């Protein structure tokens, strides 16, 4: 598919990530997705939290708001409420999404606001030199917690699109992110994509094996399984807990029976931020207190 945009149209600053970081893959895939979907840079907004991956808006030529730790989701939600005509992508690490921002991850999907949230999930806090994140295994660098389970939580929180991909398979990532954006564009609401990646500096090895080898061996594409039905939430829950020998990727769940918040409340064709900027006559309100 060719559009008037090429990947180069989305180029901006050179990233400051470590060489070999999975964030490069995510950045390149995003540019490719925007270009091939023909999304004009000025009609896309990327909202991020804090961490290595959250610097991404500085490296891509679309609207970008690099905010504070854990708050990308509610900021993206407010932004989408005010400008539902734009494509709004929220992006944050596993600490952002499942730790400090877990309250939002459990609630923003319930609103079914039409945003795509991408979780850069590498099990470690890189920027602060390698502390365990919420998805780190128990025992990893003194971690006393069991790892957070993004997929079942997203399902329980009411996300209408729940998927997983990983940085070792850029083509798959491109497919999943495109499907997530389409889900939002079609007015079905909130889309969540869990992106498994590694931290080349602090977490490059999974159970003694190199990251790529470990997951390549176990990769299991749900969309290649003819018996897998992503509209069935019980299947999604079951698959969400599959671990060990199998590493399921793809669309776990897709619900097209719900309307996005911005559709349900009629905001799409009348964005609140584009309504007249003027004083309102409030005498009708004041009269009530006579």
């Amino acid at each position, binding site marked *: 598919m060719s559009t008037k945009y090429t990947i180069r149209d989305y180029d901006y*600053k050179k990233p400051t990530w470590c060489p070999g970081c999975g964030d490069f893959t995510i950045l390149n895939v995003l540019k490719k997705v925007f270009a091939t979907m023909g999304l*004009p*840079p*000025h*009609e896309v*907004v990327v*909202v991020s939290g*804090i961490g290595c991956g959250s*610097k991404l*808006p*500085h490296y891509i*030529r*679309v*609207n*970008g*708001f*690099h*905010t*504070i730790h*854990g*708050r990308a989701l*509610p*900021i*993206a*939600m*407010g*932004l*989408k*409420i*005010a*400008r539902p*005509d*734009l494509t709004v992508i929220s992006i944050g690490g596993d600490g952002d999404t499942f730790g400090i921002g877990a*309250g*939002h991850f*459990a*609630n*923003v999907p319930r*609103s079914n606001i039409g945003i795509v949230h991408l979780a850069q999930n590498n099990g470690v806090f890189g920027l602060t030199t390698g502390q365990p994140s919420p998805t780190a295994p128990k025992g990893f660098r003194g971690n006393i917690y069991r790892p957070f389970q993004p997929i079942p939580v997203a399902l329980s929180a009411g996300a209408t699109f729940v998927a997983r991909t990983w940085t070792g398979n850029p083509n798959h990532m491109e497919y999943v992110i495109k499907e997530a954006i389409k889900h939002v564009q079609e007015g079905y609401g909130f889309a969540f994509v869990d992106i498994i990646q590694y931290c080349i500096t602090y977490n490059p090895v999974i159970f003694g094996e190199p990251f790529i080898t470990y997951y390549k061996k176990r990769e299991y594409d749900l969309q290649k399984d003819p018996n897998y039905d992503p509209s069935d939430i019980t299947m999604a829950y079951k698959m969400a807990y599959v671990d060990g020998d199998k590493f399921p990727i793809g669309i776990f769940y897709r619900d097209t029976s719900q309307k996005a918040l911005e559709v349900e*409340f009629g*905001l799409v064709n*009348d964005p*609140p*931020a*584009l*309504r*007249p*900027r*003027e*004083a*309102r*006559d*409030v*005498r*009708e*309100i*004041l009269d009530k*207190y*006579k």
Partner: protein
Amino acid sequence: MVGMRRFRGISWMIGGAAGLGINTVAELLSKALVREGFYVFANIEYESLIRGGHSYYRVRYDTRPLNSHVDYVDVLLALDDPSLVGDGGEHSDGHVHELHEGSVVIFDRESSRVEDEVFEELESRGIYVYDVPMTRIVREAAAGGKVNLVVRNMVGFGVSTYVLGLDKDLVESVIRERFAKKEAVAEANVKLHDLGYRYAMENFRDGRRIILDPPPTKEETLIATGNHMAAAGAVRAGLRVWAQYPMTPASRIYRYLEEVKDKYGIFLVQPESELAVINIAIGAAFAGARAGVATSGGGFALMTEALGLAGIAEVPIVVIVASRPGPSTGLPTRQEQGDLRQVLHASQGYYPKAVILPGDPYEVFFDVANAFNIAWKYQMPVIVNYDKHIAESFYTFPYPDQDMYVYEDAKWVSEDELKSIREAGDNYKRFKVTEDGISPLMDLGTEDLVIWSTGNEHNEYGDITERADERVVQMDKRYRKIETFKRELEERFNYYMPVKVYGEPDAEIAIVGWGSTKGVILDLLELLSEDGVNAKFVQIRFAYPFPTEAVKSALEGAKLKVIVENNFDGLMEGLIRENALIEMDQSIRKYDGRPFSLEYLYDRFISLLKEVRVVG
């Protein structure tokens, strides 16, 4: 108490457990009084519970404006025993000690366990006890049908209408208006009010009535709380997105906005936490919609980090903080002015902001509306901080002339500038360095141009920077917005009124206050003038930027400077000291979780004057 000092106007009170409908009666009575042309001040004390406990609502009114409550009661409608004699102090000490010779008590003795001696004692004090079988009247009116004993409040209301000599038709029309959506309910309430009225007329014909004639001419007034006016002010200013998590005493703003959201096209959301609230509003404002939030101190604490983001990323955001006593949950339904330093210093580092301190609902209307102007013109957070006494008390005030508020838009980047950016192959500078510190805004979605923004320090384009020189440039640029704003405050002093002076400007005694103490201080001034004491009231309405010069000139020449604050640690007193280098001579503080009553402040002030030997 015999010999209790009394002030002008009439003080009526309804007391009872939560759930007995005391608010309804107090608010209906207040509305009827205002319709008759009276000026009303009505305030409630209640506990943090849904049913039970002890709540009471005071309604004080007069033919002239009044702005405070008194501790004595002329007419007491006691719906249960604790309202009269207390419950041993668990929830209530009772209100009999607030009655004086000539007071009237409306009470249902056959539904009560209060000992006969109590009534004998009341009568010996010259207090009139009107025994009204409110419960029986409700049962009989139901005539075997469903009985809802809550509505005995309406019977007591009818008795009050008689005792106060109010226009019964007018009161009934106010009741009908309140229940307009349910005609059967309206008529049932009117009937019970009527039964109470008739019972009183038949049984207490020769008894005492406390009647005040309405003023001959009626000014066009409103009766409303600060929260009502906060909602109205926000709508006036073109509000588009509102987020709020419930927290007393700010909660009702959401309800008032909900009533009008469809007509005015406002999107309302109650998300999972105050963290979400402020960030949703920041997202909406970043996108170009006027957005606001409201909370109290605890919720504001959660918003703190995001406020700094709005500061550095220059996002226009309006935050209403309706205070209650802290620390922590403190006294969740009570009164205190304890959050001034919290709102002033919220979040790490320096960022430009404004903190406005309205003193009554009328000021709340204009201050909230102007907060949106200021937020957008200067692209910064604006906090409007008032307290429970303003948030939830009903004040009578002139109908606000909405045209006194003028919508002032942000500075937007011009078409010419956009053209030249595109032609130069450049990008939009979200944080462009300008003389006044204000970088013109651009709408998201502007053809071929994008916006970068961040909570990190940044260059003009919104790219992260760690350069020392760029840091200084941007810090200075942001601070220049405050300098620009300070100039505007000076040039338009009479529009923003950062400081107001009441009374003789050259009076030797200056009473300083902020927020809700305005009302009681104004009423104190009147009493002092009757006593021959010449004093003025200096009301400080901006905490940031602090109106240093105006405060200095207002206090210049005052021989006795007294500050009145409803808090423990004299927050404004410290602020004056640090900004204006002026030391107060005396301070009157109150931190028991209750507002200043007129006699309490009067007594403290007079004894203070005696101490410093200005009088007596």
